[in-house]
């Protein structure tokens, strides 16, 4: 048991090391794809940490992300960059806790749309303040390089995976699996489901805000319509679900092929990008009903069955 754990840890560390070398390859192109993959891995994995076990589909990613970009946008001239990431994380977590407390009573699609409305509300309020204060568009002119951003995202991804792994082994993680299976059983087994969910919801909130803070220098120009674009929330959900939200590594196997597919469609069919992306979505939904994780599981079962047959 622990043997496998150690093996997995070592393998992950090696994989991480290889990923960390990407900027040294000198290809800015692959680096920019790497940044995209790292960004969505962070967002989708942390999203799935909450949504996987609880089955709540949150569309609030853009809200937290946008808040994070604004933290950097407003503070990068006065505070060191690393502290801004921390501040963004704290603000994201606090915001998520508030949202979590408010949304406990909602179920299913009501929660989905609530989070969507929340993201829009945050955006409207920030816009309004910006307007009242006569604050212009924020220019984040820094000398932080793309490689720097990539490494920061990679570290954040590592932190997210470690958090996920630790949660998975903790009572909290076990509680959440029970809640996901049957919330009634959970509360009658002594689980404070409300508290567990709020605690867990703080993870994607905080992580998305930190991601926004890290990426702000890349976008240079911060304005509400770009920072809070609702498309981001949808992309995260889609990638996590395509991968499979039930496993810690599920979103990762969704993000990588999906980003590459997106990239290859964008580059090869510039006139029909949107159309073909849509078609690709549909094909994936119909061909991979349980996401890439489901596909891999099926393959594994099949080979195992075949091996068992061989033995018999």
């Amino acid at each position, binding site marked *: 048991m622990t043997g496998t754990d150690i093996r997995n840890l070592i393998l992950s560390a090696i994989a991480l090391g290889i990923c960390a070398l990407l900027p040294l390859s000198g290809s800015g192109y692959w680096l920019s794809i790497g940044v995209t993959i790292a960004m969505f891995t962070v967002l989708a994995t942390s999203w799935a940490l909450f949504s996987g076990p609880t089955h709540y589909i949150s569309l609030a990613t853009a809200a937290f992300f946008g808040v994070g970009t604004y933290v950097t946008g407003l503070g990068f001239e006065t505070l060191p960059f690393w502290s801004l990431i921390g501040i963004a994380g704290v603000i994201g977590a606090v915001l998520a806790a508030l949202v979590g407390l408010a949304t406990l009573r909602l179920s299913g699609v009501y929660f989905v749309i609530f989070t969507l409305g929340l993201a829009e509300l945050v955006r409207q309020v920030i816009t309004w303040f910006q307007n009242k204060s*006569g604050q212009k568009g924020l220019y984040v002119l820094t000398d932080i390089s793309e490689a720097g951003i990539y490494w920061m995202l990679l570290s954040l991804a590592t932190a997210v995976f470690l958090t996920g792994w630790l949660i998975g082994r903790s009572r909290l993680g076990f509680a959440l699996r029970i809640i996901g299976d049957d919330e009634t059983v959970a509360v009658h087994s002594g689980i404070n489901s409300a508290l567990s969910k709020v605690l867990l919801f703080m993870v994607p909130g905080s992580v998305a805000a930190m991601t926004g803070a890290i990426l702000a220098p890349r976008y*240079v*120009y911060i304005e509400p319509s770009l920072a809070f674009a609702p498309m981001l929330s949808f992309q995260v959900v889609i990638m996590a679900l395509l991968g499979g939200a039930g496993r810690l590594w599920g979103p990762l196997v969704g993000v990588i092929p999906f980003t590459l597919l997106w990239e290859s469609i964008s580059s090869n069919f*510039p006139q029909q*990008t949107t159309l073909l992306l849509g078609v690709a979505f549909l094909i994936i939904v119909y061909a991979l009903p349980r996401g890439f994780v489901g596909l891999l599981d099926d393959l594994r079962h099949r080979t195992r069955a075949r091996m068992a047959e061989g033995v018999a």
Partner: protein
Amino acid sequence: MKRRTALKFAAALALTTSLATGAVCAETIKIGAAAPKTGPLAGGAAVSQWPNVTLWAAQVNERGGLNVGGTMMPVEIIEYDDQTNPGETIKAIQRLATQDEVNFIVSPYGTGLVVAAAPIFARYGYPLIAVSAITDQQPALSKQFPDMFFTLGTTSALAEDTVKILTDMREAGQLGNKIAMVNVADAFGIELADVARGKFNEAGFEIVYDSSYPLGTQDLSPVIKGAKAAAPDAYVAWSYPPDTFALTEQAVIEDLQVQAFYTAVATPFPAFGARFGAAANGVMGPGGVNVDDARFQEYAKAHEAVTGAKPDFWASATTYASLEIFEQSIEAVGLDRKAVADHLRTGTFDTVLGPISFDENNNNQAFWTVGQWQDGVFKGVASRNRDGSVPVILKDGWQ
């Protein structure tokens, strides 16, 4: 509609065939372009950005290409849709620079997207001639990105000249002293309103209604009704495309009686004139052109022939001019990007808008600031260092 689509299709076909044949006979110059085809800014890019790229490439190739050190090299356009998403813009520019290895890249569309792409342009040494990026941050930006140039003017100039036009009208006794001002609550609108507010106060105007509305508001009648209740003499809206139409329509319906009526982005679009017909007469907006200038007329004719649509009266010609600047620089110094960038800094370029050169902040000093619909065309009424502005007329009702 059908005819237009057919025309577009024919143009596209002609372009591809010309490219195909071009590719056979000589080495091509690859020009990259990434701008929205989908997403919130797609509507604007479809008017001001994409048709000009198509037009320019078609014209250059019709001539046999660009003269690079004596050889005629046709141009090949590589287009990407950035989906109005800065992340996608960054990826697309990266792709153009490193995978397609294009010679030059046309500026993206929209302040946020242009500025997001600027570091990539800088890293790979591509000069960036920004068009649809209006900002007062030009000194800071050109300091950080020395090869970034600006063509469409500054926020301050747009706002200042609008105030100046109204001030002149007041001095001439045509206009009272009361201003109603609204702005779309987005970086662009906020910045313009902020500058204008100060200038209006400075000029001794009384702002009787000052308000903002969020992007995506579906009913702007309260904004017009509120302004109307304040009985202004002039109405100024720092607006975005869908709202520009909605505000003007509401003004028509409410019969807002003002001597000057100004709406921002999309006012110079041909669709605006088509939509409001005679009611558009006297409506002011940003930009404008010298419509009597033969070069512009020739450009507009070619634009319609090749792309099936009329150019707008602001960013269209400037976008085209930015390509002419590339064209002339390449023909002057060749395909070396560093040399082209240096040439941009020092040269003067002869464009559809007249001569263009860049100052020490990489800023074009000659641009149109205010235009006005007069008899079905959007004529320039105020500019910085441009000739051919016409006198402004009073907004005389909506019929």
